[in-house]
């Protein structure tokens, strides 16, 4: 059974407590606690011991996407409580300047593929450096980002072929041209279904769609549908193999 949940930052930016309250009635089994801005790290780490996360089968933390008030080393140090709690830490590779300070996280460090606004980490080739520097790191596949880079999903397939064994979690959303996350449209559903065969059912999914509480139920249903195994149109009988008059 696949665990599906939300990023707290998508539901309530900077207020993980509010986001967790919003999710209370939905029985979601996965959650990503966001500290997307570095000043949010300390409050989250302080609150972590007391947060009621018992209903969740999968919990991760999203590290800051930029280091403005803290250095990279300081952020890494402040996130070490995640190691004791066996909580994966999702990180944007473009902020990694000192891989050494992240090695202590081992498999708990989860490198995410980037969108077109970023200078690196967007493709299978660009991710190679980070996994060579962080050989134990796992991988967070951001489907919105990879689809933005290549809407045919060929790059996504390439990424999964190369790093599928490291796959720890999925980020799911629709990204617009400005890199903002939205609720999924039919186009996103269709492209997701085209690569579902490469994603094991045990991989948790974190929804990053920036939606209101009234849209949570719908978004969960949409994501569940998007991640169902793809139905082969020819096996449905709707389209027959026309055959080839040559081979």
């Amino acid at each position: 059974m696949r665990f599906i949940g939300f990023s707290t930052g998508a539901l309530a930016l900077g207020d993980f407590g509010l986001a967790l309250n919003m999710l209370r009635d939905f029985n979601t089994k996965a959650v990503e606690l966001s500290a997307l801005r570095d000043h949010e790290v300390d409050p989250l780490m302080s609150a972590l011991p007391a947060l009621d996360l018992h209903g969740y089968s999968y919990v991760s933390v999203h590290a800051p996407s930029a280091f403005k008030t803290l250095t990279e080393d300081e952020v890494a140090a402040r996130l070490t409580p995640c190691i004791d709690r066996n909580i994966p830490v999702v990180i944007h590779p473009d902020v990694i300047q000192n891989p050494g300070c992240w090695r202590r996280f081992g498999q708990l460090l989860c490198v995410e593929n980037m969108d077109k606004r970023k200078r690196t980490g967007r493709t299978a080739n660009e991710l190679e450096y980070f996994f060579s520097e962080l050989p134990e790191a796992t991988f967070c596949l951001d489907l919105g980002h990879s689809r933005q880079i290549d809407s045919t999903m060929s790059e996504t397939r390439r990424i999964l072929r190369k790093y599928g064994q490291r796959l720890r979690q999925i980020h799911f959303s629709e990204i617009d041209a400005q890199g903002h996350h939205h609720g999924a449209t039919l186009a996103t559903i269709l492209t997701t279904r085209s690569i579902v065969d490469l994603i094991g059912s045990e991989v948790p999914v974190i929804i990053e769609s920036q939606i209101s509480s009234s849209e949570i139920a719908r978004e969960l249903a949409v994501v569940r549908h998007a991640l169902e195994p793809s139905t082969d149109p020819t096996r449905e009988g709707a389209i027959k193999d026309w055959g080839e008059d040559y081979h």
Partner: protein
Amino acid sequence: MFGSLARGEWTQGSDLDWTLLVDGQVVGEHADIAHRIADIVQGDKKTPGPTGVFGGLTFSHDIVHFIGGDDDTNTNTTRRILLLLESKSLGDDTVRERVLRAVLSRYVGEDLLYHEPSKYYVPRFLLNDYVRYWRMMAVDSAQKRRERTAKWALRNVKLRLSRKLIFVAGFWACLSCRFNPSADLKTSREKDNREGVRADMTDFLFSFCQQSPLETVASAFIRYEAWDAAKRSFDAYEDFLKILDDPGERSRLEELKTADAMSDDTFKRAKKDAEEFQEGLTKLFFETDNALTSMAQIAGVF
């Protein structure tokens, strides 16, 4: 950019065919940018040809969504096929690559709705579009000959050499999916994986968009070790480029009247080059390998 500069065959008299490829949200300033580019190109006296296909904006949605049918105008087809067969980005290739992958994925993906992945060898939708474009160039050449006799000889020579070259490159790219596929494509086929074949054939076909048509056609000769045929075609093509690179010879072809062509030494030389070029291709596709010949006959004719 397109044409001889994109193909790596730039000569002294070459003009600059370009377009501003837009893939994304509407931005009014794109038109201003296109005008500025046009001014720069005009300043260098390398303006694109007079057909209006180049020298302005091209929108990815038209290229990807209008394939065949009334919306696929002559201009749209030309832009799409030349984007596939002879284009290069000036600078960052991100947009061009994204659009090309979307186009190729459409050709391949739609074909795959009607074929078992394990039996999908040649992208017929794409191949048919390449063949259609080649025939369209030939027919348009006849029409231009009727409308304007200026530069007829140069256009005729280009049709039989550089235009034919890009068609053959596209043709071989499609046949390569059968005769020389990538390892990933072979594996996806063996696994009968529809999405895998779509992605891998798209990748494979895209790889041809990243090399010159000469390199692609050379790979065909190499694949079949057709060295004599290769020498005939490439020696002829090299001589053709020498003619174009000689200002005197080039202007002679530009100014030649149809009635004088058959007695003109430069035109006769270029005509001989065209015949030799074709002879090499004929030997490759029809006198080298039975399976290749069979496929070329079926796919190229029907």
